[in-house]
């Protein structure tokens, strides 16, 4: 007898605790868009001046290419919030939910975050028809923590001398992991291994998030290896996190704590917090250079650059950033970035 198919919940953004999705009987599927591909003109008009990646997600939905039973959008960037508003207006048939988390851990913010997660649970259980209970929460916590362990192993391989996994393979595994059940995700992540040339320049990547691994591959083909990153589709993705809880309320409380403990994506973090994360992660990976590609209309990362440069300068690591990168101009930007990074390393 085959098991009934679990509903697939598309997730745009990085604020959804997978433990709650899994415990509700659904499979989380992170929707990230891509670096390349057309943005249909209607989608562009509807979103206005938003990151092209959001435009590609909207194009995907409009073309019926979103293979999900429902969509949860996180209010962790204005592009995502706009996407939610537009979908609410033009796609009333799509089960749609917004997760809107505050960023500073005040008493009032914690209360609102609890309300948001409770709303998410209600949406999910309405979709699956499966109420959360202690057993389901425990099962999903164990499974998600196993993924967390696999991610630690992946980080260790990337930080090895020489690395035992390229950045492109690692990012592909991370993106896939965010679309799979934890058990499959563990297999996928543990399978991410490759030889890396001794001569490759060790690079930490910051700037805009990477919706696919295309630019990682291009950078690594030109003599770099990306040993770590601090953007929120890579190692900054909220994956492998779970809490022990006897009730849904306890689980929500624990996950609210975890939310406020992390450094979010650039659009939500302070520049000071993100710069500290950049420096500390680059140090752990013994990166010789830090690079970033910042998309046009993804404005927040550009505001972090001076703080990042200052902190990295204190540890003798150079920062190279390509800013205002327009659609179609990504490969040129990566070539220049690679030249800067490898040139600096050779000097």
């Amino acid at each position, binding site marked *: 007898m085959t098991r009934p198919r679990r509903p697939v919940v598309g997730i745009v953004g990085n604020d959804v605790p997978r433990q709650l999705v899994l415990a509700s009987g659904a499979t989380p599927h992170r929707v990230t868009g891509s670096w390349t591909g057309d943005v249909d003109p*209607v989608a562009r*008009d*509807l*979103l*206005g*001046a*938003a990151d092209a990646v959001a435009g590609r997600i909207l194009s995907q939905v409009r073309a019926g290419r979103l293979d999900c039973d429902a969509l949860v959008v996180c*209010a962790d*960037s*204005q592009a995502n*919030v*706009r996407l*939610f*508003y*537009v979908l*609410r*207006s*033009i796609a009333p048939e799509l089960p749609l939910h*917004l997760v*809107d988390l*505050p*960023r*500073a851990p*005040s*008493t*009032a*913010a914690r*209360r*609102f975050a609890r*309300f948001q997660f409770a709303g998410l649970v209600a949406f999910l259980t309405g979709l699956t028809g499966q109420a959360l209970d202690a057993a389901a929460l425990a099962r999903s916590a164990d499974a998600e923590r196993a993924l967390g362990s696999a991610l630690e192993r992946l980080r260790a391989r990337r930080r090895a001398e020489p690395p035992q996994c390229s950045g492109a393979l690692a990012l592909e595994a991370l993106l896939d992991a965010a679309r799979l059940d934890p058990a499959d995700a563990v297999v996928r992540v543990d399978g991410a291994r490759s030889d890396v040339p001794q001569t490759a320049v060790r690079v930490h990547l910051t700037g805009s998030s990477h919706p696919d691994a295309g630019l990682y591959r291009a950078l690594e083909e030109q003599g770099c290896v990306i040993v770590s990153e601090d953007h929120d589709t890579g190692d900054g993705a909220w994956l492998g996190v779970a809490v022990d809880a006897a009730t849904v309320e306890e689980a929500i409380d624990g996950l609210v704590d975890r939310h406020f403990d992390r450094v979010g994506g*650039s*659009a*939500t973090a*302070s*520049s*000071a917090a993100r710069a500290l994360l950049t420096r500390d992660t680059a140090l752990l990976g013994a990166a010789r250079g830090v690079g970033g590609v910042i998309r046009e209309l993804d*404005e*927040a990362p*550009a*505001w*972090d*650059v*001076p703080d990042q*440069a200052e902190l990295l300068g204190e540890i003798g690591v150079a920062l190279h950033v390509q*800013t*205002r990168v327009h659609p179609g101009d990504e490969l040129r930007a990566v070539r220049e970035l690679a030249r800067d990074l490898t040139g600096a390393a050779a000097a």
Partner: protein
Amino acid sequence: MTGRTAASDRLPSAAEATAYQREWFHSLAARVDGGESLALANADAPHEVLRSLGVPYVVNQWWSSIISAKRAGPGSLGSVAARGLPDYSRQYDVLPLGAQDLPADRAPWGGLPEPRFAITERGGDVTHKIFEQWGRRAGTETFLLSRTAAVPAPEGWWDLVDHRWEDVFGAERIDLLQGEIEELIAWLEERLDRALDRARLAEVMALANEQAEWNRRTRDLLAAARPLPVPVTDIIPSVMVPQWHRGTRWAVDAARRLHDDVADRIGRGVAVWPGERRRLMWIGRGLWSDLEMYRAFQEEFGAVFVWSMYLAIAADGYARYGDDPVRALAARFVGLTDLLYVPPMSSSWYVKEALGHGVDGVVHLVADDTPGGALISAALEERGIPVLEIRGSNADARSIAGVRERIGAFLRDRVPARA
């Protein structure tokens, strides 16, 4: 009928408001020199707390407009770039930060005294980073409030929002902002070493509501008036200057003066253009680089602009009544921007206003950073109101090149003249 008002025949309330604003600003430096703490607050921050605590404040976006008008924008953006920060991002919001580094003789009106407090809600991806920079200046501290998204987002909010705001915005969103405003109050009380008088805050809220009521009456007068008695370019300063003095008796009186000026012109039968045959709505920010544009279609097309968002949102968006002034204040700001930009709240409101003012066509300036523009245009077109969309920035003349020609063609081709 008296006939066409001359361009020089400025509305007295507009002239008074502009003069008052300049005089008030010049008094700021003296107050700060005398030991008072100045606050820089974003437009959607709860100014009424500052007013009640007796803290003078400057609104970030208003100060930006002065910097732009005084041609100090390029120098200010140069200062931003010199710090390694992007000078192409959120320019309207960041100008004051850059202007603080200008020498006094290049700064508008001698420059803004250094603020002690910088307060904003986290609008967009960048505002909090701009205010983070303010907090690094010697003597300035930053306070950030949360910004939540518009869930729920009902149509028909204008009939509910002044009293039944819990229904419009949802109790949880208001709970959050109320809690954070209480934290802001405690933060300010500690630094100022004085306590907020809640009765005083209630008075400030009442004055702000009274001001909104005058604005509503004025809006209703203009909606019903045929022909249009006052150019829209006079209405805007008459509304917006008092808005930044909200919660004072002066602001209430200024709003009433505007109302009385409008009523007087209606009573005297004044017409901006006696041969009015097309009534137009301008959605979006004002085109301040070309104010004459608003009059450019009168002679050939009998077309007058009868509406801008500035008076309309002042009429419908600000009043909040309630026994708890902090909660009512949270309800004022929790979704103010949503009313203008988030569909279906925004789109249904623009349709209501278009119908109420009897407009024959809409010119819709869709700026880069304003969401939902296409949905607003579609809602108007569905009601049979033709819309011309112009994509561009009101602050960048290059992006709106040829706008007069496009509006002319729009009027000729799509907006029939009334008999």
